[in-house]
């Protein structure tokens, strides 16, 4: 019987991809293991292999087609002894995955236990909200709509760009300006970045400045710090921050402390960057938010952007900063698009939070992917007549206490949102700072919404439970509002 060949998913977070090339043509005999086609995403390239024997009866999606959704039938395979032309003329089955089909199940947010981690395009564009599809460039005409984006001059053209592209552009721009900037890490060069963040850098800057390292985090972190001691400006990419635990001694004991220990003689102008926090279905060792860890260390700055414009502007600032910077990215956010100002040299200051959405009843403070819960919750709260002000911290250390406190003085209530663990977390720190600075203004105790106090489980339902949810944020906001 005829079998549909479906568009496979390359990763748990892939939603669509490009059918780059068919390697078999209609009428070709195929056997299991034969490579049928190549597919690409902005992140990676993969071969689609046959799992059944038969004849490639019909190609449904031709070479070079972009944005093919995962699980779309891309071809029909006629089974042994089956009439090829009959199979070819049969209409493709519905897109639902078949039990015998090879491709991974659709990694849609719902199924991956991530219903509450909405892709930002679900959020209306009232306040520089991200958009999923490239749209016509927009122009800032109304400053109040971007009231906290003081970095962006009025009249600036905005272009939609993924966080991934924004990070790449930030590095490329700084590398063009300053020959002492270089990138090193695993798979940053020839592979074009494990998450394609360094795509194209090798081609532009060459192997001397875009350096593939062996799998040796402790060693190359130390090499980067040593190079930084001499005044070079390394960008050290960790494939994920989970692996940076192997290097944490060099980050903390060497990078963060040397300026102090040398009485100000010798610092380390270095950026450690890479994806941080939970991705999807990768379990405990690959799912951890290190924002609170690094934020405890004097001598480090810790940056965790949410939007593409912040990612770009903050990374440029980080590369120029004379201090060691922990730059925490998020894999789920890499592929999401946001408007980014089209400026020759756009930077965002480190240490300044951004009021992403103004409100009067409750302050919700978050950062990085936590913002997706915060913004969605703010929308839901609005429906119930609660006006939430959402602050994107952007920098965890030094923390912009002033912006948080000013907002809490206005609203009298605060909820913090992060995916990290509760104990000694960023939320705990925010709560303390509010106590120290605005205790008399509080109308209710601060509530922190965090990842649960457990190692990240693998099972989809448990993973969903372990992460914060929009419902939890909404409930917390209502609680502090006594509603």
């Amino acid at each position, binding site marked *: 019987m005829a079998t549909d060949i479906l568009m496979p998913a390359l990763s748990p977070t892939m939603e669509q991809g490009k059918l780059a090339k068919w390697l078999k043509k209609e009428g070709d005999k195929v056997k299991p293991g034969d490579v049928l086609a190549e597919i690409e995403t902005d992140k990676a390239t993969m071969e689609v292999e046959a799992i059944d024997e038969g004849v490639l009866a019909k190609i449904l999606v031709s070479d070079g087609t972009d944005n093919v959704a995962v699980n779309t039938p891309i071809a029909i395979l006629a089974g042994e002894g089956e009439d090829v032309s009959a199979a070819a003329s049969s209409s493709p089955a519905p897109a639902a995955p078949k039990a015998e089909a090879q491709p991974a199940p659709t990694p849609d947010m719902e199924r991956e236990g991530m219903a509450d981690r909405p892709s930002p395009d679900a959020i209306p564009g009232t306040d520089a909200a991200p958009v999923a599809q490239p749209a016509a460039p927009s122009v800032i005409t109304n400053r109040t709509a971007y009231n906290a984006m003081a970095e962006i001059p009025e009249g600036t053209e905005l272009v939609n760009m993924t966080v991934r592209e924004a990070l790449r552009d930030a590095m490329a721009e700084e590398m063009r300006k300053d020959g002492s900037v270089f990138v090193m890490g695993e798979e940053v060069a020839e592979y074009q970045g494990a998450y394609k963040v360094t795509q194209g850098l090798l081609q532009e800057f060459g192997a001397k400045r875009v350096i593939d390292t062996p799998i040796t985090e402790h060693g190359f*972190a*130390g*090499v980067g710090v040593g*190079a930084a001691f001499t005044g070079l400006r390394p960008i050290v990419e960790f494939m994920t921050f989970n692996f940076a635990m192997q290097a944490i001694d060099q980050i903390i004991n*060497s990078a963060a402390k040397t300026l102090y*220990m040398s009485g100000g003689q010798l610092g380390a102008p270095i950026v450690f960057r890479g994806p941080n926090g939970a991705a999807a279905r990768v379990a405990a060792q690959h799912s951890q938010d290190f924002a609170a860890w690094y934020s405890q260390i004097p001598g480090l700055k810790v940056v965790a952007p949410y939007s593409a414009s912040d990612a770009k502007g903050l990374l440029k600032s980080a590369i120029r900063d*004379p*201090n060691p910077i922990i730059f925490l990215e998020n894999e789920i956010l890499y592929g999401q698009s946001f408007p980014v100002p089209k400026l020759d040299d756009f930077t965002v200051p480190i240490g300044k939070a951004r009021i992403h959405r103004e409100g009067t009843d409750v302050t919700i403070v978050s950062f990085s992917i936590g913002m997706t819960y915060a913004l969605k919750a703010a929308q839901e709260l609005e429906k119930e007549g609660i006006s939430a002000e959402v602050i994107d911290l952007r920098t965890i250390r030094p923390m912009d206490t002033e912006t948080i406190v000013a907002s809490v003085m206005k609203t009298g209530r605060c909820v913090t949102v992060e995916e990290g663990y509760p104990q000694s977390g960023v939320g705990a720190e925010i709560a303390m700072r509010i106590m120290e600075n605005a205790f008399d203004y509080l109308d209710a105790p601060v509530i922190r919404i965090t990842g649960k106090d457990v190692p990240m489980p693998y099972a989809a339902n448990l993973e969903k439970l372990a992460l914060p949810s929009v419902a939890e944020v909404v409930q917390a906001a209502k609680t502090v509002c006594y509603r």
Partner: protein
Amino acid sequence: MAVAARKAGRAGTGAANKSTSSKGSVRGAAPNTPQFDKNQDLAAYNDMLLIRRFEEKSGQMYGMGLIGGFCHLYIGQEAVVVGMQMATKEGDQVITGYRDHGHMLACGMDAKGVMAELTGRRGGLSKGKGGSMHMFSKEKHFYGGHGIVGAQVSLGTGIAFANHYRENGNVCLTYFGDGAANQGQVYESFNMAQLWKLPVVYVIENNRYAMGTAVTRASAQTDFSKRGVSFGIPGEQVDGMDVRAVYAAGQRAIEHARSGKGPYILEMQTYRYRGHSMSDPAKYRTKDEVTRMREEFDPIEQVRRRLLESWKLSEDELKAIDSKVREIVNEAAEFATHDPEPDPSELYTDILL
């Protein structure tokens, strides 16, 4: 201690200088120990004596409670850093671990600044905020002074990486001990250094004890010159008690690194007379072993004998050198005793730029 005693004999008898080529085979007979001319012997004597007297004074001041925390003395190992430094040229960098006073003096850092850092005073090289294990001098190309065992090996490899990146022709001397040689990041660094042909010389100061653990109890391969064999890094065992042997090996190693051939390993067979730190119980080795090393292989005594016998210096001339060195050390101690502590406002400076 039989093993240690046997090895002690080897260190001082010129049986060193065995080298492993990049393919890991052992070269044949040791080259003859190179000779120093009078000026070289005089310079080496002066520099080693300064370290010895400085360290003796440090020990004294520690006993008086003027120096706090950890204090690791370099006494006995002076020939290593002095010989290596003689083989460098201006611009070459040095990085080491926590037993760093000798390295700083050999790099030309001010004895007053080093001593005042030991006593935690504002005139210390790190304004009193680094202490014995953490001092730096950009001007003298000294990159510390690192308290985490082995961390300096990746850092030194990174400094060499920067030399390579800048194509400045400089070489980074990266010192570490027989204890640090067992840290994982050492081998991560070896791999990258050889892969990228970085100009780094790894100087393993094998003083035979990692704190109180003899190398034979901690190392499966006690020939540290072979530690780079699987990466194709050439290495030599060097009589680290003979400053001439150190200098000659240093020249070979530095030339190798500077010419673009990549890293080189020198195992310096040396000995520390004092404890690991000031609070060492000294239960892990015999007094006889220490006495024998001091009497038969002392690096300074070897030069002193040459100065008297070969170069016909008089006892008075040597005394003059000695009193000059003592003067420098006494001045440093005086300064470090009376210099004020850092201003309390220094607590919050130099955290970020």
